[in-house]
């Protein structure tokens, strides 16, 4: 179902088009992704595994591969980041899918190009890095695999906290618009450019990129990796059912495409993401039965918690989801109170008649490209797990490869923007630009944002990363 009225967002839909899903004709709007259009038509089971188990959307940003379908005869298309087109033939697939029997390999010539700086990821970090480089006369090549620029900012409808310099008081999607506006027409931007890998050819760093149905080989002198993060998954029976969605996927559906993700929801996790998305679900007309939080305390800001409590949503601490009910899709959820060892307490189980289980249990940095680049990694739980080691100036153990934002350790959009700027200034300093004062200024702003009780985890995490980095440099 599509949302028509929303307290904050206005949905401007594109041209009406028609496509087929497993032979059935479905109407959609230009600008929607295949997965969003199917969801709007009430279709949640997108494909099936080898054994026939249903699979649906989970991350909605091209990372989890749970939404793969066969599109115009091509199997394994990520339908959550692929725009729908007039006349498309969309089919569910079973297991790895089948190659079109009439397929003949007609290899295209690869397009080769060189770039002084390549930025992978056009979220808050990548866009901020691009802006700084442009201000100093360097025109970066910006690659992003999504149809829209702005990363996860495009689905943030809440106003940001902090100071004016960090765009406080502005809603996330407006910040995305501002950042894009600042570089559009100046930087070379490729949307829907999928980075497939990083190779070393004749001593040069070469990125293999799929773009506009061609293979693009980009020799990159310097590289800023700002690939963001991905939603964490949770272990409980039924966790694979369509209707168990990451919190970010739910935001994408309702805030970017104006598609109602379900009728009644259970939110798992009372950190800021869980609390904010619960409120956004209510704004989209979805009932929220409860927010469960495994820890004995609410993790997010109390102002967010108070907001949803006032609207009658109970926040149950020391509670978790123990099972998703349903065969083909979520038809309910069983929750229970848990003890000090996170084990469910017998007799406290309760069934909720929800059709949506929303997981807001944290993020993992997306570091695969960095691992291919040979960047050394470290395990730092405060930053979300395995993270690339980097200097306080955002350079990894591979000279010329910089990181910024969530892929360098989970933080907030405001710190991601600053890290993007810092990575760019750091790169400029290597090129002998006089930017020492700018670097000091950005570092001070970062420190300020990471002050206080909520900044403690990322602050501790970053200190660990810098120490590990120093050990590598010495050893």
């Amino acid at each position, binding site marked *: 179902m599509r949302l028509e009225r929303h307290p904050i967002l206005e949905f401007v839909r594109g041209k009406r088009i028609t496509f087929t899903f497993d032979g059935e004709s479905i109407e959609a709007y230009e600008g929607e992704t295949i997965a969003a259009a199917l969801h709007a038509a009430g279709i949640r089971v997108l494909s099936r595994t080898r054994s026939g188990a249903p699979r649906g959307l989970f991350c909605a940003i091209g990372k989890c591969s749970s939404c793969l379908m066969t599109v115009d005869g091509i199997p394994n298309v990520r339908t959550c980041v692929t725009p729908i087109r007039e006349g498309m033939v969309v089919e569910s697939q079973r297991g790895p899918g089948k190659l079109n029997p009439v397929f003949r390999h007609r*290899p295209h010539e690869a397009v080769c190009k060189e770039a002084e700086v390549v930025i992978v990821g056009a979220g808050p970090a990548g866009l901020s890095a691009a802006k700084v480089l442009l201000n100093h006369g360097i025109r970066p090549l910006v690659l992003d695999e999504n149809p829209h620029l702005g990363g996860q900012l495009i689905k943030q409808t809440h106003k940001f906290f902090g100071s004016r310099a960090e765009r406080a008081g502005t809603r996330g999607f407006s910040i995305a618009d501002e950042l894009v506006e600042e570089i559009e027409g100046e930087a070379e931007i490729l949307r829907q450019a999928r980075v497939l890998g990083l190779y070393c050819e004749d001593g040069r760093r070469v990125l293999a990129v799929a773009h506009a149905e061609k293979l693009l080989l980009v020799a990159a002198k310097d590289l800023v990796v700002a690939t963001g993060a991905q939603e964490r998954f949770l272990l409980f029976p039924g966790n*694979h059912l369509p209707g168990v969605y990451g919190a970010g996927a739910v935001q994408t559906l309702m805030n970017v495409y104006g598609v109602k993700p379900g009728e009644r929801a259970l939110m798992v996790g009372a950190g800021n993401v869980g609390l904010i998305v619960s409120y956004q679900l209510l704004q989209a007309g979805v009932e929220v039965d409860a927010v469960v939080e495994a820890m004995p305390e609410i993790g997010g800001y109390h102002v967010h918690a108070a907001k949803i409590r006032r609207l009658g949503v109970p926040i149950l601490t020391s509670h978790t989801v123990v099972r998703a009910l349903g065969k083909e899709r979520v038809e309910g959820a069983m929750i229970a109170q848990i003890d000090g060892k996170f084990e469910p307490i017998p007799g406290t189980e309760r069934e909720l008649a929800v059709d949506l289980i929303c997981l807001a249990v944290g993020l993992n940095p997306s570091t695969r490209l960095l691992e291919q680049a040979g960047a050394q990694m470290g395990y730092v739980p405060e930053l979300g797990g395995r993270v690339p080691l980097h200097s306080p100036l955002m350079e990894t153990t591979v000279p010329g490869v910089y990181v910024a934002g969530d892929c360098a350790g989970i933080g907030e959009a405001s710190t991601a923007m600053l890290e993007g700027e810092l990575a760019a200034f750091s790169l400029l300093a290597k090129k002998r630009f006089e930017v020492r004062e700018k670097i000091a200024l950005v570092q001070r702003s970062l420190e300020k944002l990471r002050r206080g009780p909520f900044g403690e985890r990322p602050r501790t995490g970053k200190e660990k990363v810098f120490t590990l980095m120093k050990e590598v440099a010495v050893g």
Partner: protein
Amino acid sequence: MDEPIVCRCEEVTVSEVKRAIVEGYDTLEELKRHLRVGMGPCQGRTCLPLLAWILAQETGKSLKEVMVEVSVRPPLIPVPFELWREG
């Protein structure tokens, strides 16, 4: 199927992983090769952190110890055959 899934792509369950650990496949790399967990189209993006958590629980090792490097091979995402060059 009434069991938590660790790896959606390859449909590997928690008990399959636990059994494999008892059988001696007690590193991420071995579990991958034995069960194909993390070797589907998402290349372990979703399941490897969970797999590491189970491994730590079952072997008594710390997450830091089990979260060692596993090979990250290209292509990072599914890609149409047409893009591949000859040679």
